[in-house]
């Protein structure tokens, strides 16, 4: 797999892999990230993108000047390996009103019924490619092309926390009430980021995710958002 190591300013390096949404490329990025974390480089953070690894380095620390060369050798040393998928995370989702304001729009995009949208969203196992944007947000792909509606032309000022949404072939769960342009088709009662939990973050890059439908009653009985 082609790799390129490039400085990203004076305090970070970017390892670039082939430019596509591909589990094998992303798995390679994760392998490289783990190898960097095991290395002696003075890193502060290592962040996996769809097809990149950003390595944040303290530029004045001992060993920082070797970062470029070290990353080149790490990136080359990682042999192409089959996609080793991460653990399976099962996530409940309620697709009923009032949690699914954009279900009809996505159905219209796919020329299908709202029930079809739900069935298609449930039909696949997704991969967490990237965690970013806000704490705990997982970019998961790829959804069925029939529900791969584009971002909304006018983003919402505030998307409720827990909203499960699709856009441009991806799906994700909003971990906090934020502005957002994705199409909301359900709500998840579990917090993707909960500082009070032993493991505060629900998702890591490489995880596999399956959604499981719950009723509005089950949602209200289990919600961690205080919206029962």
């Amino acid at each position: 797999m082609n790799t390129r190591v490039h400085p990203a300013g004076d305090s970070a390096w970017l390892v670039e892999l082939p430019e596509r949404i591909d589990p094998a490329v992303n798995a390679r990025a994760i392998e490289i990230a783990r190898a960097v974390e095991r290395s002696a480089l003075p890193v502060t953070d290592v962040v996996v993108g769809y097809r990149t690894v950003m390595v944040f380095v303290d530029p004045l620390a001992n060993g920082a000047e070797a970062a470029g060369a070290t990353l080149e050798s790490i990136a080359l040393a990682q042999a192409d390996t089959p996609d080793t998928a991460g653990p399976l995370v099962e996530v409940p989702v309620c697709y009923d009103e009032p949690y699914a304001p954009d279900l009809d729009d996505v159905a219209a995009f796919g020329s299908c019924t709202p029930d079809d949208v739900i069935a298609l969203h449930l039909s696949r196992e997704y991969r967490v490619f990237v965690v970013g944007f806000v704490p705990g947000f997982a970019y998961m792909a790829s959804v069925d092309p029939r529900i791969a509606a584009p971002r909304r032309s006018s983003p919402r000022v505030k998307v409720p926390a827990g909203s499960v949404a699709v856009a441009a072939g991806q799906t994700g769960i909003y971990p906090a009430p934020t502005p957002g342009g994705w199409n909301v088709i359900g709500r998840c009662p579990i917090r993707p980021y909960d500082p009070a939990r032993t493991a505060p973050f629900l998702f890591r890059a490489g995880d596999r995710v399956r959604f499981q439908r719950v009723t509005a009653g089950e949602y209200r009985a289990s919600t961690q958002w205080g919206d029962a």
Partner: protein
Amino acid sequence: MNLTVVKPGMLTTVQDLGRRGYRAAGVPVSGPMDAYSHRLANLAVGNVPMAAALEITILGPELTAEGDLTCAVSGADFEVRVGDAAVRANEPFAVPSGSRIRFGARRRGARATLAVRGGFDMAVTLGSRATHLVSQMGPLGGRALKAGDALPVGAEGARGARGAGGAGGAGGAGGAEGAEGAEGAEGAEGASGAAPIPLELPDGGARVRVLPAVHRERFTGEAWTRLTGERYVVTPQSNRMGYRLDGPLLAHVGAADILSEAMPVGAIQVPASGQPILLMAECATTGGYATIGNVITADLPLAGQLAPGDWIEFVPCTREEALAALRARERALLGVTA
């Protein structure tokens, strides 16, 4: 001991040097827009550099001491009074119990740091007391100060967040992207005895140095020439996350969008509109727009002192110059001129 808030000012937040080691989980670094002045203010009161202090934006607060406190103000040049007496920047001053600190007219710069000896002893989240407004993370539920807030002050000689039991994450190094955690853990900086050299504040605008970014070749050559040859203005649609800049549009060769990847603070990203956005302290960990340049770490504090309406110019430099500038910035904190 507390510092209580009489008037919060325009946007006053609790900040330490930021949250490192959790960017892989989507947690932004946050921390001060001018990390250099944050360190300088902490140094002036004898704190570790990581200690939590207040970042004051454009219109300053009014605060009352409960208990005898020692404070220092660095960064933006405000008229600051304790009671009726004006106090000098970058030097410790006493705030006797019951007296009031008032921020008045702002002369230069946009953001001041108010440090208090002992630091603010507030809740540590993921190893840090930095406030991240968008994700509501940090002390006070991740919000700006409000009238009536009582900010507890730590005991003298209090350590930074890590010493207070926070999980430091993979990082440990503080600073704009590192650099000060290690020596900070040993105690106060500036042991040489020389007075640290304050940041030179912008006067209506600032020149910052820039390196070509990883996506530089996704832009036309003319775009780079424009970015580095013409003047931009910080628009009112700017905040701690980033500055939307008004000026010559920057054209992409192909699409503006990229597959989401991590973004460093200081990256200049350009959406399809061609209008650049300079990512600042509170920026999201990942982004989906191509970046044309990266402001060098040594110049981020200066960029952090810009207010809406100020101009900014991007001066190309080399990696060697960027690192030399960063070393010079560290020496300036020790009172050594470059």
